[in-house]
């Protein structure tokens, strides 16, 4: 029982060392979020939208610059080295994977904010309801929109979410991880419920996401408690050390603890069987939020999974690897097979994102710095493609509302060749066709898994390859539909036709950037691949 008791903290108060330059990105994002709340409170309504959107974008870019600065200040920070026991009790690990994820999330966040800021001529963001609290379809709601109410709170909420996201892969202990998990989740629960159109679907999505998310957080917390019981510490390095020296009969705490903690994280990346929320939430949430979630939440959660798997629980790998292998297999298979039967564009991409989570897990299971680099690269490339894809979806309208049913997309390529072309290209990227970033990403992940994953890695890759073949069918079907399908009910009724609205420069910018990066990383991936490779070392 001796190892179970928590090792005593130092008797004298020891001030923690903080490298402020290393945590500058976190501080900037959090500060901007706070200022955003103040803007909500004090800036007149008609200027709020511009101020908020500008503030968010500038803040994110500043934070990105800070990430570059922080790259010179890598190491553990915000904590103490206990002189007596030589334990390193640090809350944050500023290292390659953390900084890479931070940079990725911040850039994706810029694109996400820009699509959210789309107004389409209205006073507030077009995708968001002017009054989230009112009952859908009630007179109160009508009055609110007539009075010019707007939900510019989405920007501070997004900034808080991004703060949680860049904290998530950076935290070095389970408590910090939990805090980050909550900070990133809570704003997302609210954002999912704020869709302007199809309010009930949106509110349902929000509630589902909240309930299941709360459950998974509870799992995470329970798992952390068990791991604390096992190792006597929340710090990942301590847990790792405890596993390598700890008594074997305590595995009754270690195994369920590790598993429950993973459940909490796998929920966020939508791995099967913790994926049930994904299609509903992706469909119900406002489309720009869906894109933002798909890109950034996934990046953040995979950052945390990497740290947990490679720093915290690495020494106990044999206890949980098999479970994770099964989950990766299930995720790929279920995600790709179920995406075949989808008839709604947003649900289709939701299932596709599940399949992609499976592919990334294959990279996680490579247990090698190559695998880490591949995961970082994959998450970044997927993020840029998916944000652009959802931004395009938000532009395809019928009668003012988004036309997300597949049949509504039929024949889109004939009337809107540019938009359809960009979307088809993104579909090819999701399918992993060469000359798109999707191919390079899959290739990196799979070759890492075959290279160091042994027989299990090979099996995973074979299944992964088969699954990506299945998903190719899905994406090809969308392309066929856009280019060779007949437009629905082609009655010549102009008011009823499916159209692509002309977006403002912000949305155009994020679609263009997402698409161009997807192409660029497919043709000349070496710069980012190198960066990801060099960023693949964790500090402990």
């Amino acid at each position, binding site marked *: *029982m001796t190892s*179970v008791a928590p090792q005593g903290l130092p008797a004298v108060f020891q*001030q923690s060392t903080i490298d402020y330059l290393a945590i500058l990105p976190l501080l900037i994002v959090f500060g901007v979020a706070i200022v955003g709340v*103040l803007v909500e*409170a004090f800036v007149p309504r008609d200027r709020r939208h511009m101020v908020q959107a500008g503030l968010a974008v500038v803040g994110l870019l500043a934070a990105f610059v800070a990430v570059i600065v922080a790259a010179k200040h890598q190491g553990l920070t915000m904590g103490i080295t206990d002189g007596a026991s030589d334990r390193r009790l640090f809350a944050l690990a500023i290292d390659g994977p953390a900084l890479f994820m931070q940079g990725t999330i911040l850039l994706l966040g810029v694109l996400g904010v820009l699509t959210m800021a789309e107004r389409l001529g209205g006073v507030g963001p077009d995708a968001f309801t002017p009054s989230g*609290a009112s009952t859908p379809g*009630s007179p109160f709601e009508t009055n609110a929109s007539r009075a010019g109410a707007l939900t510019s709170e989405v920007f501070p909420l997004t900034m808080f979410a991004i703060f949680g996201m860049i904290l998530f892969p950076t935290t070095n202990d389970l408590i910090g991880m939990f805090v980050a998990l909550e900070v990133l989740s809570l704003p997302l629960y609210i954002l999912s419920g704020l869709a302007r159109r199809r309010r009930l679907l949106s509110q349902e999505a929000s509630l589902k996401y909240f309930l299941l998310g709360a459950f998974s957080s509870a799992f995470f917390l329970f798992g952390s408690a068990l791991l604390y019981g096992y190792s006597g510490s929340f710090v990942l390095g301590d847990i790792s050390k405890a596993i390598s020296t700890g008594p074997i*009969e305590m595995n009754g705490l270690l195994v369920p603890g590790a598993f429950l903690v993973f459940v909490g994280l796998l929920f966020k990346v939508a791995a099967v069987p913790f994926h049930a929320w994904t299609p509903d939430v992706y469909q119900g949430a406002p489309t720009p939020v869906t894109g933002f979630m798909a890109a950034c939440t996934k990046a953040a959660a995979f950052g945390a999974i990497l740290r947990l798997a490679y720093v915290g629980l690495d020494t106990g790998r044999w206890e949980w690897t098999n479970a994770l292998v099964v989950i990766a297999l299930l995720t790929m298979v279920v995600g790709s097979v179920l995406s075949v039967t989808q008839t709604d564009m947003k649900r289709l991409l939701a299932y596709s994102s599940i399949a992609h989570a499976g592919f990334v897990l294959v990279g996680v299971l490579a247990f090698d710095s190559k695998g880490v680099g591949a995961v970082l690269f994959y998450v970044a490339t997927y993020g840029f493609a998916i944000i652009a894809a959802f931004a395009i979806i938000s532009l395809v309208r019928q009668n003012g509302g988004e036309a997300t049913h597949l049949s509504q997309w039929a024949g889109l390529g004939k009337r809107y060749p540019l938009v359809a072309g960009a979307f088809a290209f993104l579909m090819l990227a999701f399918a992993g066709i060469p000359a798109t970033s999707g191919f390079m990403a899959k290739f990196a992940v799979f070759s890492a898994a075959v290279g160091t994953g042994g027989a299990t890695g090979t099996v995973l890759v074979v299944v992964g390859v088969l699954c990506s073949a299945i998903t190719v069918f899905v994406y090809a079907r969308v392309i066929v539909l856009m280019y060779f399908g007949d437009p629905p009910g082609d009655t010549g009724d102009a008011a009823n036709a499916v159209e692509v609205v002309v977006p403002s420069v912000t949305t155009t910018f994020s679609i263009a950037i997402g698409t161009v990066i997807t192409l660029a990383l497919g043709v000349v991936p070496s710069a980012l691949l190198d960066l990801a490779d060099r960023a693949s070392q964790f500090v402990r």
Partner: protein
Amino acid sequence: MNEPYVPVLFMLGLGFVFAAGSVGTSLVVGPKRYNRAKLEAYECGIQPSPQASGGGRVPIKYYLTAMLFIIFDVESIFLYPFAVAFNQLGLFALIEMVLFVLTVFVAYAYVWRRGGLDWA
């Protein structure tokens, strides 16, 4: 022998006994004088009806008050230990505390400016 688990089992049993026991005891011992207020879901504070699903609106003021309370509640959780260990912690902690309190006040300012405190 799974010795470490015996206390866990014991705690489990204790929890169960306490839950069942307190419910059972209140059934036996408690006075049974029902009136309208007693039969409400919450005996005090908020009126749970009318239902939102019926198109009616739920009074939100109770929740607002509750959340504002939590803002200051959380603040005091940190202020007490800070006050106790003030001498040891020094200037650093003072700055940290000020920042923390300011952050909390931002939320307060938001509620105030956006009409959260207008009771009418």
